[in-house]
């Protein structure tokens, strides 16, 4: 990987996502911003996918189990050329191919539909099993939220993954420490995720989820030691000036001005860090 290239990709994805949400006027900014760097690494340096042939059976799958952050994935897919960036402006409009939550039947590049939290990991396990049983190549990456991990189905899936030594699936936790109603620690304490996954029999890694090199290193290490999880330490709303606030940022109303300022700030920060 090339650090600068991937950082530039992350900045582009962030800007496209802010534009997209601003066009809709509101949306799930917090959890979208926290995964932009992860998505940039995945789609620049990790995933074997082809925008020209999005359904190729032996592709790597990416399942965004926290489906409400579809806007960040749509921005990534548009950036990668799965569809025209102009389409991002149709988010949530009647008849759009970009619905609020990920829909495999509507959007090129969306592998499975999500939105009812807690279901994506099992879907991913099914794809991983299907590939194995049929001798089809490709890996599966599933992004889950920290709040989402409260859903019991995740831990059913984790037990299954550990027992069956699922070797072609990586769990990615967007540990942005917040859920809808506030800080995850106040709503339902998470304790030590790394220890938790390890106690279930899963290799666990931790990464700074806003450092593209660290994300890359840990994802690569995890993919080589499946079954594995990478706990990405992130900040909800990260990288977008108006959503980097301690108050409510799960979804926000976004004006044109807010978007313009935030986009200029993304550029400034990129330049400063290159």
């Amino acid at each position: 990987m090339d650090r600068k290239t991937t950082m530039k990709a992350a900045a582009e994805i962030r800007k496209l996502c802010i534009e997209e949400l601003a066009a809709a006027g509101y949306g799930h900014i917090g959890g979208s911003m926290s995964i932009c760097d992860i998505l940039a690494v995945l789609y620049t340096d990790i995933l074997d996918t082809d925008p020209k042939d999005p359904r190729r059976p032996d592709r790597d799958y990416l399942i965004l189990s926290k489906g409400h952050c579809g806007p960040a994935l749509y921005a990534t897919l548009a950036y990668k050329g799965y569809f025209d960036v102009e389409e991002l402006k149709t988010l949530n409009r009647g008849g759009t191919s970009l619905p609020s939550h990920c829909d495999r039947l509507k959007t090129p590049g969306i592998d499975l539909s999500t939105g009812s939290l807690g279901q994506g990991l099992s879907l991913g396990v099914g794809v991983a099993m299907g590939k194995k049983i049929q001798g089809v190549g490709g890996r599966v990456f599933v992004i889950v939220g920290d709040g989402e991990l409260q859903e019991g189905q995740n831990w059913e899936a984790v037990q299954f993954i550990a027992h069956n030594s699922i070797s072609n699936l990586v769990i990615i936790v967007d540990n942005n420490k917040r859920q809808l109603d506030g800080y995850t620690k106040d709503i339902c304490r998470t304790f030590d995720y790394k220890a938790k996954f390890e106690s279930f029999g899963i290799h666990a890694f931790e990464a700074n989820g806003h450092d593209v090199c660290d994300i890359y290193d840990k994802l690569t290490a995890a993919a080589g030691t499946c079954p594995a999880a990478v706990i990405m330490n992130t900040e909800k709303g990260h990288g977008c000036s108006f959503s980097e606030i301690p108050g409510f940022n799960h979804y926000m109303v976004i004006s044109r001005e807010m978007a313009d300022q935030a986009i200029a700030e993304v550029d400034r920060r990129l330049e400063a860090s290159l």
Partner: protein
Amino acid sequence: MSRLTDGIALDTKEMRAAYCEALIREARNNGRIIVVDADVSHSVGTEPFYKEFPGRSINCGIMEAHAVGMSAGMSETGLIPFFHAFGVFATRRAFDQIFLSCAYQKLNVKIVGADPGVTAATNGGTHMPFEDIGLMRLIPNSVIIEPADAAMYGAAVSYMVNNYGVHYLRTSRRKTMRIYPDGAEFVIGKANKLADGGDVCIIASGIMVYEALKAADMLADKGIYARVLDMHTIKPLDTAAVEAAARECGAIVTAENHNVTGGLGAAVCEALAETLPVPVERVGVKESFGEVGGQDYLQKRFGLTAEEIVKAAEKCISRKKIQESKK
């Protein structure tokens, strides 16, 4: 006088054995069929499949939600998973997973729910599905099949393998009254006419088909001639057969081992309301949860008997006559 129930006796084979044999037959010619269980493979009867196809059998353990979601993911890669559990857990417990992980995203998953209604018997109220059909009917484009006896599994399983979508097979594991001869023909979505009277039509499914035949015999003794339809496919409903019954008999009794709300009776009423409304009486469970007991006790307890069907038929015919006299 010959009776409709002449020659009908308790099968020598268990329903679960017939089901698994049918699935194995299909799987020998179709490498995409996968069995998924949640720790009741012994009860549901899929064990022989594990012996023949160990690489295509997955017992997840007691995690129905995950098992359904995983099945959805597998079907995305082209496999045809058959997920098995007791009916209550197969549908009610994993409903959001069936709805969103499977049906909403148009995946190809087969749900097999065992122990319909009172056949759950001594497993009691916690295990007694009276609402599974209602739940599954609410899912757009779902298919719901409830065989009356072991003869139908070949046709049912073959349909499920060869047609894409979310299908629900409501299946008993026990021995049941054998209605059909070996090799009987079934067309999914088309009711089987087992008796052709013109006074009233009894539309039944599952264990209630035998009760319907008994009821028709009892009615014949009183000079009342009933048509009997085995409505083995509850969705899509054979509305043509229902409409013909309304036109030709003018009175309809439904009989189901399920809550009348949301089940076969509801489906028939909905179809008639939009075509040819005639008096209907619904025999089935009404505003009740399941209970523990032997199946015979429970059939009486919830009114799932030939006697109840006879009473309903007589009431329905008298309502028809009142309606006719008003014309």
